[in-house]
């Protein structure tokens, strides 16, 4: 058996196409998809600072708005993301809006004119909203004084006037970032691709009839396939280590309290995929059919349902949630995420047991099928 293990590993070293693919591609995918889809997971505001060019020729209500803004207890820049710079002429202000995409506010006597760059409508809206809200407040207070000065004074003079919405900032450290998600999901996706190595090897052994020659040496079929599975398991154990370490050290992916144990779980999933690859190679005679089956059905469906590209919540319920469970990737991903974020190891243990049992089942089916073929031959 040792000779078969050694042969498979040596073959991978000599022809490392798939090995390198599995070694490097997870890192590439984690970084690429993690960064592209970071917006969907971001725990920080993605609003950018708005620069305002202000031409102050204010009188009346406009001047009052500026006074209110400058004397406000909150920082317009820090809390609202609006930075005000003054400009000297109307032309300068318009140029700032046109060229530098600033929002130009012209406080013209008691009127306020806003010029926004058409490529940044949201920035313009934010500035308009701020100035309008301040102006409205001032006017409202004025009207209130007109109607009932005593009451208005009482109202504004109390703490009620400083009424603020209570805001509590929740720490973001436990939030799932895009790298936390795709660090896990892309690694498990690439584990699925491990099945391509045994597929290629077993088809080559079959095509060149090397397997027949091996059988003539007296090695049993059981030992041949068991040794092959051990070799692919060793490859699975080694090949994903760089991506796993990279995810922790460079992407700060959360693998829970015991990352090495989580890696062992991934290796178990890899062994299952190797066994699945061996089974497919055994069941299908044509390499062409296998390639179509993998590229059109198995890998796209498993990866989509598994959440490799589109994250599906791990606590989903209903029919679609059951459909998602068709993919073993989904089992693996749910197992990992529930263990890390919900402190629930149930799915992890259950899926680990399922992968182990299914691996043995695949091996059994392969050996029985091979034996039947031998007797039929």
């Amino acid at each position, binding site marked *: 058996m040792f*000779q078969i293990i050694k*042969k498979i590993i*040596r*073959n991978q070293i*000599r*022809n490392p196409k798939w090995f390198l693919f599995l070694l490097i591609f997870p890192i590439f995918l984690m970084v690429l998809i993690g960064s592209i889809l970071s917006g969907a997971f971001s725990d920080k505001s993605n609003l950018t600072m708005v620069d305002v060019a202000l031409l102050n020729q204010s009188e009346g209500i406009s001047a009052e708005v500026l006074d209110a803004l400058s004397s406000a207890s909150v920082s317009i820049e820090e809390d609202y993301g609006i930075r005000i710079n003054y400009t000297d002429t109307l032309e300068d202000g318009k140029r700032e809006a046109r060229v530098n995409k600033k929002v130009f506010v012209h406080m013209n006597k008691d009127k306020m004119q806003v010029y926004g760059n058409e490529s940044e409508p949201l920035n313009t809206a934010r500035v308009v909203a701020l100035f309008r809200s301040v102006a409205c407040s001032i006017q409202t207070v004025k009207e209130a004084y007109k109607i009932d000065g005593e009451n208005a004074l009482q109202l504004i003079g109390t703490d009620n006037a400083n009424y603020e919405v209570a805001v509590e900032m929740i720490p973001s450290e436990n939030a799932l970032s895009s790298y936390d998600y795709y660090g896990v999901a892309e690694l498990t996706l690439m584990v699925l691709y491990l099945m391509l190595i045994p597929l290629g090897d077993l088809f080559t052994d079959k095509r*060149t*009839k*090397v397997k*027949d*020659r*091996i*059988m*003539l*040496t*007296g*090695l049993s079929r059981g030992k041949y396939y068991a040794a092959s599975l051990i070799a692919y398991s060793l490859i699975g154990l080694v090949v994903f280590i760089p991506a796993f370490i990279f995810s922790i050290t460079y992407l700060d992916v959360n693998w829970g309290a015991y990352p090495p144990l989580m890696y062992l779980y991934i290796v178990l999933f890899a062994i299952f995929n190797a066994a699945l690859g061996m089974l497919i190679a055994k069941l299908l005679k044509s390499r062409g059919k296998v390639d179509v089956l993998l590229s059109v059905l198995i890998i796209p469906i498993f990866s989509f349902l598994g959440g490799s590209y589109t994250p599906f919540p791990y606590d989903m319920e209903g029919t679609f949630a059951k459909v998602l469970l068709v993919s073993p990737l989904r089992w693996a991903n749910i197992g990992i995420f529930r263990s890390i974020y919900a402190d629930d190891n149930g799915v992890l243990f259950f899926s680990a047991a399922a992968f182990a049992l299914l691996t043995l089942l695949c091996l059994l089916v392969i050996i029985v099928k091979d034996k039947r073929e*031998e*007797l*039929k*031959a």
Partner: protein
Amino acid sequence: MKVIEIDNLVKKFGDHTAVNGLSLTIEQGEVFGLLGPNGAGKSTTINLVCGLLHATSGDVKLFGKPADAEKSKLGFVPQNIALYDNFTAYENVKFFGELYGLRGKELESGIDEALEFTGLSDVRRKKAKTFSGGMLRRLNIAAALVHNPQLIIMDEPTVGIDPQSRNHILKSVQRLNEKGVTVVYTTHYMEEVETLCNRIAIIDQGKVIASGTKKELTALIDDKKSLHFTVDNAFELSKEELGQIEGVINVEIGDNEVQVESLKEVDNLHAIMEYVSHKQVKVRDIGFRDVTLETVFLTLTGRKLRD
């Protein structure tokens, strides 16, 4: 001692009968040739002997025991190049040696001998994928020799290789036989069988249609004669027209060589020369030669070996 005993062997693949009641006995120390056209059932017979296929009926014994029990005494050179092209010559031979249970000095000497024997010692550290077709065929043989088997079965080992490698393989087979190894050699190249084999079985449609030494086989058709002549412009001659001459049973026309097989009792030399002269073809050399196994096969089956 009987090395291989095949008794009434039948192998069916669905409706097709590949081997049809084949019986053979091969003695120790023989180089036994299985000669037959493609699809005659040679490889199927070999695979049945090796245990790679299961017989529909019949029996195969190796060294007087059921074939499965004596597999380790057998070295098999398959028709395919059953090797790892990313491995060196040494690694390929070592892989199979280890699978046969060889270890340590026994393994190393087995590898050395096998590579030496096949003339690959100088390229032992080169990967198989850098080898020519002939070198790969030789390495294919080396991998079957590493465990010093008493019986070597070679399934068309010279298909598609250059004459130099072919000669090397043929000489290797002779040297193996001199060492006392029994060789079973299948081919559809009649010349190889004539050169190598002590005994020959001609197989067609899954049956042995004749077996014996070359002399015994050619004696089966001692009523035939074979006229060979070398000419300058053989293209002027017509197989059909030569075939119409009385007594002619087969005509082969090459670039400059012409071979006419005839019945011995018919004196048609004059008629043949008259036809050649009529076609204004210049004859350089002429003479009768021994009847070949090709003629034997043609006579027995009505078909050519390479049809």
